[in-house]
């Protein structure tokens, strides 16, 4: 038998995708599963984006797209970066990928040689580490303590950077914690990075518009302009415009780096669906009122989830500034036994028992590099959230 490459041996399938698939499979068997595992808005894609997609399909805009994105979408992205982030990117400094994930994947594949280090504040979106590994890189995590609101401290970042560091990842609001540093805190991280000119910076701003309690968004290339020449600013339409299925992510960065991403994408998938690109341009340029409407709803849900989880015995839940996740601590539940007789030694045990006995799907903190926690997504309707949190409370009450 022919064999497989070692490249993927240490790479795992995305755990939230695995949990989502498991929940979908249980649902197909007729079980009433509520999934809080998805990082996906429950809202519908805005009407004007849908209309633009219709028009594109009907008018025959169904031919091979330019590999790096259509000129119309790139222009809309340039306007977005200027409007929201006060960043100027020209057409050769922008690339459109199949989701933000591909932009990040391309960036690593285009730049990381075996042994290069990628510094990732932890807890973190696991795919960062897996993508770095596919490229032969070594993920180096920087622990972000809960008592600092899950945000990285400048001295910890400084200590993690070595001569082999190729990239530093920044993701605010962060998946899975929802943490958002203030502008001053971000500038302090920028000061560290300015001292290390050999390091590339990736700012994954996918959750930019989901901020609460009056927090304002800032991104590193804007806060520390000296870093712009070696920063890749990643964003997309999935979370802001409820367009996960359309697969539209994009990046802004120096032309030479964008060229590398472009070359990589040319060999992996070529361009992105033309219909999706037409929808994305309309979403970026169109009325932004829905974004604020959704944000306000998410804020109410966050408050609901935090309050209900904190009422569950054994769980303490930090209240995050952004995104649509909370990342409660489960320390008070460990060592106990569930009603169904399952021993809860780890967060993985907790989410497995919760799924089996109460049919609520969450993702264990171990998958994000911090235990004993779990990630709860509140990107689902309020009734389901209330029902799911009620089941979690019940599950915790029954622990003995």
């Amino acid at each position: 038998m022919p064999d497989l490459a070692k490249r993927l041996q240490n790479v795992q399938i995305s755990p939230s995708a695995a949990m989502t698939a498991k929940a979908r499979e249980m649902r197909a068997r007729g079980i009433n599963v509520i999934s809080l595992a998805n990082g996906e808005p429950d809202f519908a894609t805005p009407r004007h984006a849908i209309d633009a997609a219709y028009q594109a399909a009907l008018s025959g805009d169904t031919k091979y797209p330019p590999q790096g994105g259509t000129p119309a979408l790139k222009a809309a992205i340039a306007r977005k970066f200027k409007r929201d982030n006060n960043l100027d990117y020209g057409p050769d400094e922008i690339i459109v990928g199949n989701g933000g994930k591909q932009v990040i994947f391309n960036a690593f594949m285009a730049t990381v040689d075996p042994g290069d280090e990628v510094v990732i504040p932890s807890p973190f979106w696991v795919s960062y580490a897996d993508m770095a590994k596919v490229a032969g890189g070594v993920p180096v995590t920087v622990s972000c303590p809960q008592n600092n609101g899950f945000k990285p401290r400048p001295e910890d970042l400084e200590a993690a950077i070595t001569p082999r560091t190729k990239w530093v990842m920044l993701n605010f609001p962060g998946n899975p914690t929802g943490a958002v540093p203030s502008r001053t805190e971000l500038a302090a991280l920028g000061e560290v990075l300015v001292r290390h000119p050999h390091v590339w910076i990736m700012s994954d701003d996918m959750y930019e518009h989901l901020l609460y309690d009056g927090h304002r968004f800032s991104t590193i290339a804007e806060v520390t302009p000296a870093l712009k020449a070696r920063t890749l600013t990643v964003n997309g339409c999935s979370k802001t415009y409820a367009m996960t299925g359309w697969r539209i992510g994009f990046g802004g960065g120096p032309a030479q780096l964008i060229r590398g991403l472009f070359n990589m994408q040319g060999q992996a998938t070529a361009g992105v669906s033309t219909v999706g690109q037409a929808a994305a341009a309309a979403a970026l340029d169109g009325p932004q009122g829905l974004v604020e409407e959704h944000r306000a709803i998410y804020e109410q849900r966050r408050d609901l989830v935090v309050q209900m989880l904190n009422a569950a015995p054994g769980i303490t839940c930090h209240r995050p500034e952004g995104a649509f996740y909370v990342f409660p601590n489960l320390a008070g539940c460990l060592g106990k036994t569930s009603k169904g007789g399952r021993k809860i030694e780890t967060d993985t045990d907790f989410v497995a028992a919760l799924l089996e006995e109460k049919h609520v799907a969450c993702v264990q903190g171990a998958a994000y590099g911090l235990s004993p926690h779990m990630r709860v997504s509140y990107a689902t309707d309020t009734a389901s959230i209330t029902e799911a949190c009620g089941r979690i409370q019940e599950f915790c009450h029954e622990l003995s």
Partner: protein
Amino acid sequence: MKLIADRLDRISPSLTIAMTSKARALKASGKDVIGLAAGEPDFDTPQNVKDAAIAAIQRGETRYTDVAGTPELRKAVAARFRQDHGIDYKPEEILIATGGKQVIFDAFLATIQAGDEVIIPTPCWVSYPDIVQLAEGTPVFVRGDENHGFKLRAEQLEAAITPKTKWFLLNNPSNPTGAAYSAAELKALTDVLMRHPDIWIFTDDIYNKLAYDGFRPATVLEVEPRLRDRTVTMNGCSKAYAMTGWRIGYAGAPAHLIKQMDKLQSQSTSNTSSISQAAAVEALNGPQESIEVMKVAYKRRRDMVVEMLNAAPGLRCHKPEGAFYVFPSMQACIGKTSKGGRKISNDEAFCLALLEEEGVACVHGEAFMYPGYFRISYATSDEQLKDACTRIQRFCQGLH
């Protein structure tokens, strides 16, 4: 700081870029340029397919799907494989990707270790060797002779196999020649492969719906089912259904390989567009008449182009079985000078002079690892083709 990873440095810059940018510049300057360089159907996506996409958007199918594709599309792909080729694939043996290109990328990155060899018959699509090199493999080129219809002979394949051979990659019908293998021709190759149990087989069947004069391109597994546990059968919607911009490719392969490809895809792009997947279900399950309509036009065009090119002094054009390309030899023109005073030293000089002097854009053979020839795509209107071939005849008559 070193920007680009070694893996990208291994990829050769595209040989077609000079030609396409020149064509674009000429067009922009107002010159009447006929493009015969693009590898995509000139037909529009069938209306029933567009309608299915629009209906999917209206049903709210704008969310993440399973990374490997929706159950509906995997089922439709399985049904197509069964109906068209008598191959039975289970859902877990099927993967949906962002274009056929991503299937190749996923399969090679999942299996190729540094130094592994991939046997590629030439002339070949440029991306094959590039993706092999990106995965740190070594392309091994085996020349398909023109007097054998550009097809590989069994003894050539046998001679190319070494202990380092990881894959045999077949494109049937072929880009750029249109050459296609009958069941008997293919059996001679699979007999060789049966003797070498450690080799994976990749069959790129993306053009297999497009063959003329009653010719039926065979695929590996219908000829030799015993190769099933080490064959990837790739196909897609781009060529058969004029859906290049929708980005839908798919593969059938043994479950353990699909699992690895799924894993890589989960970390690089996730699912391909949910809307495009819905469109693809309709393309595969719906009425297939649009293919017949396109085939009638392609056959008529092929016959005209072959006849007109063979009437041009210095050109020799083999009549291929399928796809929408012809690959004429221009070797008899080498050493001559064009009317405009350009020296025709090779196939690239020929194509550049043809573009400058007659405004016809083709791709030179060197770009397909096969100098002395050039590729013409006849996926354009009859009038345009006639005009272009007349210009080519005039250009060749002017050579001295």
